[in-house]
């Protein structure tokens, strides 16, 4: 018997048209592979879609493909992920479940004593017993696990699978992976297979009481950083699991997506001009045709502003040579001259004040009203003004001038364009 385990497909994440195509192709290739390999069922523990209601284009191709899988007689078992969940069943997941293309496995009952019972769903063909919990944003689902009545789950006999969506701290391989991780001990013990979602790289580990905790990772990309990982050789795909009473094998099936080029520049202790020069040279060395090009610049400049590192010319050059997409990451780029020191505070207001107070000393202006306490007050007002949302029924061409005029008024400036 065989099942497939996919996760974090993030349909609808890509904004660029050519990447949208790749996203769709990879998704379809994965499911075609499942059909071709005659899997008994498919597990998708969360983040099938990037948002709970994706655009119609995405829904159309997803429905078409799921219908095909359904017609092939392969059930798909899912839980919500942190991106596509809806507390009021207002997700395209629910629509797919309603028409019978997929099945939500979370069969939870809230008990009077504030515990949560979970029932198994039994796969008709294989007899595999499947239970699972959805993933919520910022680890809010942790509470569910803490209240879970695990005795009944652990006492159940047979081949059991647990679907979950969340990071497991015991499985972290990189300390940069921050955020809502939970300890493995929160999951009920004694299942034959733990089908995980949320972590975007393939990871298969076994622990005492928890055999086969598996993340297949995203089949293409669900965060911007995924493309960079792909460019650095990260393999993408899904997992095929052969089983009888226990798991026989766990196989990672690689699905090709697209070609990449990566240009990495270390900006530490350098000036913008030398970085611009290196970018030009490195761009010449690559063949960007029909590829995703990742430009990553990190480090601390000795002087000048980070904006002095000029990407626009490089971008034009790469576009002229038919690069499919150019992704630039300057998040790790700072400057000694203008580096923002982070600051903490009890609330948003306090954090803003502290960040401005920490950093305003770096500024060298001739205008005293932009410095010291005056400057902090002005910066806060400006930040507040620029953060104003669009009003109901306000059009873009009304919103932009309103915000601009208010900001200029705060700065005591006239609009030269008028």
């Amino acid at each position, binding site marked *: 018997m065989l099942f497939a385990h996919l996760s974090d497909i993030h349909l609808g994440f890509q904004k660029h048209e050519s990447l949208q195509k790749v996203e769709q192709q990879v998704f379809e290739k994965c499911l075609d592979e499942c059909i071709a390999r005659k899997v008994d069922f498919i597990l998708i523990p969360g983040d099938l879609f990037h948002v709970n209601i994706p655009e119609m284009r995405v829904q159309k191709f997803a429905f078409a493909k799921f219908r095909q899988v359904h017609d092939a007689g392969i059930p798909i078992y899912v839980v919500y992920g942190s991106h596509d969940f809806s*507390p009021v069943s207002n997700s395209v997941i629910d629509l797919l479940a309603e028409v019978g293309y997929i099945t939500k496995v979370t069969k939870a009952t809230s008990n009077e004593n504030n515990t949560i019972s979970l029932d198994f769903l039994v796969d008709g063909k294989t007899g595999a017993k499947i239970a699972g919990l959805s993933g919520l944003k910022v680890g809010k689902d942790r509470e569910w696990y803490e209240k879970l009545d695990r005795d009944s789950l652990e006492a159940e006999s047979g081949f059991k699978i647990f679907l979950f969506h969340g990071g497991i701290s015991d499985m972290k391989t990189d300390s940069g992976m921050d955020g809502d991780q939970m300890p493995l001990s929160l999951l009920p013990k004694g299942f034959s297979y733990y089908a995980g979602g949320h972590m975007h790289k393939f990871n298969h580990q076994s622990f005492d009481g928890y055999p086969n905790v598996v993340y297949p990772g995203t089949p293409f990309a669900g965060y911007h950083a995924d493309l960079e990982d792909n460019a650095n050789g990260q393999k993408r795909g899904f997992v095929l699991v052969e089983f009888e009473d226990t798991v026989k094998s766990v196989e990672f099936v690689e699905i090709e997506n697209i070609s990449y080029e990566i240009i990495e520049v270390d900006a530490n202790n350098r000036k913008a001009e030398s970085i611009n020069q290196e970018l030009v040279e490195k761009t010449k060395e690559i063949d960007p045709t029909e590829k995703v090009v990742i430009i990553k610049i990190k480090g601390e400049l000795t002087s000048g502003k980070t904006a002095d590192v000029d990407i626009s010319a490089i971008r034009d050059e790469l576009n002229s040579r038919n690069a499919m997409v150019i992704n630039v990451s300057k998040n790790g780029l700072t400057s000694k001259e203008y580096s923002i020191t982070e600051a903490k505070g009890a609330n948003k207001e306090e954090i803003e004040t502290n960040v401005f107070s920490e950093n305003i000393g770096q500024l060298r202006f001739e205008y005293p009203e932009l410095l010291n306490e005056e400057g902090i007050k002005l910066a806060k007002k400006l930040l507040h003004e620029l953060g104003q949302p669009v009003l109901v029924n306000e059009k873009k061409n009304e919103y932009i001038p309103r915000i601009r005029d208010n900001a200029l008024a705060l700065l005591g400036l006239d609009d030269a364009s008028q």
Partner: protein
Amino acid sequence: MDEISIVGQVVGGSFGDIVIRQKAGTNLEIGDLMVSEENGSFLILQVFSLEFGSQIQDKMQQMMSGVNLEQGVVDAQFYEPDFVNYVLARIKPLARVFKENCDVKIPKSLPSFFNKVRLITKDDLKFLQKEKDSVFVGYIRSGSKIIKEAEVWLPAEDVFSHHMLIPATTGRGKSNLVKTILWSVLDTNKVGALVLDAHDEYFGRSGIGLKLHPRAKDNLMYYTPSNPPVGANRLTINLQSIRPEHFEGIVDFSDPQFQAIRMAHRQHRSNWVRELMVTDAVAAGMESTTPSRGDFAAATMMVVQRKLRLLLSLEKDEEGVVFSRHEVFDSTTKGLTTVDDIVKDIEAGKVVVLDTSRLGDEAELLVGNIIASKLLQKYKDAKASGELERKPVATIVIEEAPRVIGVDVLTSRNDNIYSTIAKEGRKFKVGLTAITQLSSVIPKTILANMNTKIILGNEMKQEREAIIASASQDLSEDDKNIASLDKGEAIITSIFVPFAMPIKIPLFEDIVKEKGVAPETGKTKVF
């Protein structure tokens, strides 16, 4: 002063050793706190010795006793006995409190002669107000009487960065005190703590413990090697986290052995332990006699392997994969981020309890060393970048502290991270909370740096002397007092308290009963 509350009157003595006559019918105890009211201020005084006084000469008393005992006179009595025979208490001034502003100063003068004194009340201790971000340690104790309204709170950032020492012998309430302290540390995120819990007694794995704190979910992290309870973390540290310097001051390696270790580290970088363990010393061509050519004698190599094997409980399976029997150390992909995660939690002001009960002594210290080194480095970096101020103070709670800061350890081996923290951690807001039965083997320089001592009962004179000699207040008259401290009774001496405070530490179980989480009721929505 209310006549009824009067317990005695100043009749003589000198500064630091004032004699009062006890009022008949009252029963003064060693350690009792009393008050002598003066103009605009009052003195807080403490009894340190009690003796009999009498208007009748000794010989006469002895003769009377003879009449009583030998001649069977049953109704022989002193004429006006309360007047003739009495108790003299020797007391010392602890503090002068100015009534107007509750200012507390070290006393520099005697109480007025013949002044009447009374026992202390809660109203006299109004200056003990809880300040923001402080740690609760107990209630003021006068003799064996507890003044529940007078809670003692210590300023968290100050006491933890300036190191804390908890000296006591077994059974005097050390772990109850540590749990009480950690309970209030859990209230806020102002103090991060690494607790090396050698007896797995703080978290409350199977009973009452810190896990019952209302903020435990957010602020308490529990790491245990195997079978972690629901929500707890697995204590697995990847061998890649270990560097040669982590063994310094903890494990006895000879110079050639250390060189072999450093060489392995240079060659294999982060995988050095694993590679060193799987190296067949003889087969690798290391000659067994001459340690020349930059190689090491096979014998040295084998000793290093054996020491590491014992220390880290390492074994090799048939495929050559190195693993540790107690599962704390891993050579594969587990536990790669544990050290970073723990350090991050401490930096976020959380209490991290490591269950090291399954580890050997040296392995426990090594785990602590790895984490403490990283923590201190991060705090040093934060100081360099000007961000230290925003970080919570960090403390490392370590039991049997002489294992790492004892005289013999520090003279025979190199400094280790714990002694470094004891010496310079204060500058970087990293402190030690050292628990020990043997203060006398900790060097004076380190003892003097421990600016808060919570002294529990101790029957060993040598230990009491070491504590008294390094106390922040003059405890020279308190030797007997310390010896007679009952379970849960303590004296706090600190540069952050106005005088050596006698306290009673409440039972941790009572704190949990009063403030612990109540079982939740109602339903949770699941979707």
